[in-house]
């Protein structure tokens, strides 16, 4: 499903600021896998996601999705298979456009955007039903401009837009970190609901160790551009936050943003 | 890689410019001409000059080369043109119109600079510098105001339309006001600072004005059709020189710029022959005849009979 082989990414090659963000990283995901990613700052988690999405070109290695080598594919073409939810809730939606316009754009992902009308009456009805599945009442405000909504509502919409077309891979980059605890929980619940319903292959970065254990069927811990620990299935479920902390300290990595709960 | 590319480009450009520069300056006499804009008047001044000099050079059995530069009526083009001209080390520089003359005079003290089509050389500081000579195209402003009175006998109020940043025009408007005061005519200034304002300013000239006067102004000369087009009240449009008639001006009493150019060429001939140029001959006023030009449409609009036109021509001494 997702096959990453020997991925290496270096920033500022040959300069004083050279930083090797990813070193010879390999990862395999089967369809339906939900893997949580944890690690200290600078471990390379976001870089990994950005490489999968195509925002960065890689220096070495390959990325294969569903048997197709996408290593050299530009970001906007790759968006057909890879969708993302960013940490900043304002980044996932176009502020000046309406809810239904945003969703229409998401639904056209991968298609040619010609001179056909963006939101036809039929589209409008269909999109309303889709938004209703969020259970947030937003289906009654389809023509409201997105900039009038709260961060949590916008993030929920971004999540919907990212999963509407059932992409091959869903990338979640600390997507609840900027939300208040109550809203964060709601968005995580939605995440679980949608990914389970769709059997969505997902990678989720989180700084919350408890969430990392609770959600998903796989867990990887990164440090210094490498995967230093992996757990799946039962082994993962049996993990405790203390186990993970110990692992961190074993590698000598103090993280100042660890949330203990 | 990008750096290498940039260096190659710069080197090529330098090489090409050197080749071009060397390629010039092959004739016996080399003259750099810097013309402010592509107007009829300035073109005629260039033509009159080059023709006279070419004839003289032929008589002398010498070859002469003219390098022509045009600033396209844009102030920021003048300095680079002058620099290139000076870099060629010509035998003399012929600067047509004030911006070119002032810039050239300010940038060289050994190459002879001959100016023309400058209304007020003294005011521009062109007088007193050793290497500067030229001819002024000072407008017969007073006579032009008299012409207005002849064409519009009941004239009580004249609108002056000009570009506020052209000193030529400001000087001429000052002189026009003096003449109008003598003739007991009221006046009002309509100054424009950029081309996109012209249409609206002209539209705001009310019907209570009996005539519009435009001095020899470069910006207005370029946009004379705009003025004519916006002149919905059909107010008589008297202009400073003949080149502005084709674009919509009604009438003028004009200097013949070709003759002016030839007059300037005489100074050049003296210099090139190694003769002394006396102080009196350095800075000259136009010595030729004035031309009365009235467009056919204007004759109709003003209701002029052919006898009246003939009478005017006799008065202004054709």
């Amino acid at each position: 499903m997702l096959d990453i082989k020997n991925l290496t990414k270096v920033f500022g090659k040959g300069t004083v600021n050279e930083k090797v963000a990813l070193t010879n990283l390999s990862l395999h995901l089967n369809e339906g896998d939900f893997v949580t990613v944890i690690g200290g700052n600078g471990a390379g988690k976001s870089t990994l996601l950005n490489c999968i999405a195509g925002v960065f070109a890689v220096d070495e290695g390959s990325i294969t999705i569903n048997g197709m080598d996408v290593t050299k594919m530009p970001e906007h073409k790759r968006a057909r298979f890879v969708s993302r939810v960013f940490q900043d809730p304002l980044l996932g939606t176009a502020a000046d456009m309406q809810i239904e316009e945003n969703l229409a754009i998401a639904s056209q992902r991968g298609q040619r955007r010609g001179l056909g009308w963006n939101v036809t009456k039929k589209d409008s009805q269909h999109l309303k039903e889709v938004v209703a599945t969020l259970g947030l009442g937003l289906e009654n405000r389809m023509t409201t401009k997105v900039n009038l909504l709260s961060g949590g509502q916008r993030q929920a919409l971004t999540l919907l837009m990212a999963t509407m077309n059932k992409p091959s891979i869903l990338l979640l980059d600390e997507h609840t970190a900027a939300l208040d605890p109550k809203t964060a929980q709601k968005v995580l619940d939605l995440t679980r609901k949608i990914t389970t319903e769709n059997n969505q292959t997902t990678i989720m970065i989180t700084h919350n160790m408890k969430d990392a254990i609770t959600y998903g069927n796989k867990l990887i811990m990164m440090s210094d551009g490498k995967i230093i620990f992996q757990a799946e299935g039962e082994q993962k479920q049996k993990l405790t936050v203390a186990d993970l902390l110990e692992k961190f300290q074993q590698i000598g990595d103090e993280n100042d943003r660890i949330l203990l709960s | 890689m990008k750096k290498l590319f940039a260096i190659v480009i710069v080197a090529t450009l330098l090489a090409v410019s050197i080749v071009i520069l060397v390629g010039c300056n092959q004739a016996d006499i080399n003259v750099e001409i810097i013309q402010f804009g592509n107007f009829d008047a300035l073109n005629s001044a260039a033509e009159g000059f080059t023709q006279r000099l070419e004839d003289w050079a032929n008589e002398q059995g010498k070859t002469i080369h003219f390098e022509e530069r045009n600033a396209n009526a844009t102030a920021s083009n003048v300095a680079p043109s002058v620099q290139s001209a000076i870099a060629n080390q010509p035998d003399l520089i012929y600067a047509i119109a004030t911006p070119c003359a002032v810039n050239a005079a300010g940038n060289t003290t050994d190459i002879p600079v001959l100016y023309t089509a400058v209304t007020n050389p003294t005011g521009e500081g062109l007088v007193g510098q050793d290497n500067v000579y030229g001819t002024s195209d000072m407008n017969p402003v007073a006579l032009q105001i008299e012409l207005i009175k002849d064409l519009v006998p009941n004239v009580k109020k004249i609108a002056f339309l000009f570009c506020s940043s052209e000193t030529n025009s400001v000087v001429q408007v000052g002189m026009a006001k003096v003449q109008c005061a003598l003739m007991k005519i009221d006046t009002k200034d309509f100054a424009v600072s950029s081309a996109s304002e012209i249409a609206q300013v002209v539209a705001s000239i009310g019907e209570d004005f009996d005539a519009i006067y435009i001095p020899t102004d470069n910006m207005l000369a370029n946009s004379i059709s705009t003025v004519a087009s916006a002149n919905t009240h059909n107010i008589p449009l008297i202009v400073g020189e003949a080149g502005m008639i084709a674009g919509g001006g009604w009438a003028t009493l004009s200097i013949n710029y070709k003759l002016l150019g030839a007059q300037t060429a005489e100074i050049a001939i003296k210099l090139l022959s190694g003769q002394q140029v006396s102080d009196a001959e350095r800075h000259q006023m136009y010595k030729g005849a004035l031309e009365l030009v009235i467009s056919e449409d204007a004759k109709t609009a003003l209701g002029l009979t052919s006898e009246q036109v003939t009478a005017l021509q006799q008065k202004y001494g054709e």
Partner: protein
Amino acid sequence: MLNLLNVTFMGILRLIPSGIGEGLAWGILALGVYISFRVLDVADMSVDGTLALGGVVTAVLVANGTNVVLAILISVISGAVAGAITGLMHTKLKIPAILSGILMMFALYSVNIHIMSGKSNVSLLKQPTLLNLLSDWLQIDRSVINIIVFALFAALVIAAIYWFFGTKLGSAIRATGCNLQMARAQGIDTDSKVIIGLAISNGLAALAGSLIAQKDSNATVDMASGAIVIGLASIVIGELIFKKNLPFWAKLAGVIVGSIIYRLIIMLALQMPFAETYDMKLITAILLVLAMSVTVIKKRHHKKEAKHA
């Protein structure tokens, strides 16, 4: 004193039609600037060049016998091509947007003079321009024809823009301008959208140039001086006059209205009894400040009322 006021008042009334005509023609330029600056969020400085390009192409073609409608079409296309090239410079050569626009403006200066065969102006007096033709055929005064024709063009342009930005392609362009990262994440090729968007905005600038050249019966190399400032001022005035969060078509109409108001304020400044023409810019600035402060005071007043209510 009363007579002075009377003259001034009559002067203002008399000049309102010409102010509206100017506002409508330059309003089309403002719409072009709206598309690049507001919708696409690109600071495109090239409109000074493309407006003149449109004027020059129309003038040269019509003066040489080409049908005026065809001339207008060719002018618009040439403006669009220039805009597309600016877009290419910015997206593919990674030249910052402002610089790309300035480079295009420089390049067009030379191109425009070439088109005029080295002259700095082309006269359209008595040539078969759209305005002259209609004025002769319908026997209506030129100042009235100007308003009718320009209003028609403005309405057509607004309708076309409104339709276009409701299509999938148009929405993709809006998304690109609104949130570049999101657009790319949604599979939009943002480079091509920027190029298309700039092509449209510069095509409009060229259309405005074509109409202005016909209005003035003249195209010059400096006819567009300060165009971008005029365009931006019109947009800002329009936004201040009307309340926020209007439907898209109303925002577009607001740009045209802003342009007309801008011209009317200039006209007002020109009619001030005690001012010389070179005071015009200062008076325009003062009047604009007054106009802005009225809207600000109005908004504060509404807020106070809302508090007390």
